[in-house]
């Protein structure tokens, strides 16, 4: 046990947590008035493995039966021809007029400022590293 753990345990033990007789009797009295709720009845898996095998086989047989019936019913009947829907061209498309008289610099200036700040940070970091290297070696 390290010093930190020992200190924490000792400090916890120094917290006075005595249960008063009054609290003790209060807890006991309140417990007398409580009725435990019964556990919800969970359906236990008590069925035999034979049951699961039988139900699986029945399911598979039913699936094959359905496939066979569908294939027999549709045998020889031509399938529906695919219908191609041709959309009519839109008569009038209104293109909104965009106000393009915006200075490019206005849009890019926040990014340019951020870039300049990042470059300055980088320069400062490089200088700090250079100074460290000079001092160390």
């Amino acid at each position, binding site marked *: 046990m390290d010093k930190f753990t020992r*200190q924490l345990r000792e400090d*916890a033990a120094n917290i006075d*947590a005595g249960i008063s007789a009054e609290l003790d009797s*209060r807890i006991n009295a*309140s*417990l007398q008035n*409580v009725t435990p709720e019964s556990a919800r009845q969970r359906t236990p898996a008590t069925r035999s493995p034979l049951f699961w095998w039988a139900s699986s086989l029945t399911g598979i047989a039913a699936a094959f039966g359905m496939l066979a019936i569908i294939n027999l019913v549709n045998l020889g009947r031509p399938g529906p021809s695919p219908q191609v829907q041709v959309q009519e061209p839109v008569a009038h498309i209104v293109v909104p007029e965009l106000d393009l008289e915006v200075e490019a610099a206005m849009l890019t200036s926040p990014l340019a400022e951020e870039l300049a700040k990042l470059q300055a940070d980088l320069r400062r970091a490089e200088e700090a590293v250079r100074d460290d290297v000079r001092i160390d070696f």
Partner: protein
Amino acid sequence: MRQAHGVSDELKLINAAKGGSVEAFTELVHGYRERLFRYLLTRCASHADAEDALQDTFINAYRYIATYNPQWRFSTWLYRIAIRNAGRLRSENVAELGELSDVSNDPLAHCIAESERHNLWRNAKRLLSEEVFAAMWLRYVEDMSIKDIAAVLERSSSWTKVNLLRGRRALEAEMNNGAQDPGSEAYG
């Protein structure tokens, strides 16, 4: 061997309590009373709140004992209920009384002797969030595993590990600061 006997006795008491025996439940939780109360004193706004939280914890535990899953330690389950109760009482008090920053009413201040005021748990209460404090307590006082702590706090094991490490670093830094500067407020 003794521990194995203890666990089997505990299971017997749990089964009896599930059958409706108050006596078995009282005997079962007897050993946990002071441990839980000590924790609740660190988390509740007042001594009275800690007592109420302890009482509610035992009432809820007895009422829902049928839902207890023996794959977890009984203390893990009890702590989970206690932490919820402490949190609920705290939020009710905040809703009724506003911010709970009344240092003079802090039960920890009354439950630690004057000579022991340099108590790390007081710093932990000040420095750490409620969940990280709980994780630290369960780890270092209750000696719970990461898995159990994660279960109590309903968090992932990764979260638990990371926050235990952060909590430890914060408290170690505080401990070292206090050792260097005895006149500082860090331990008061």
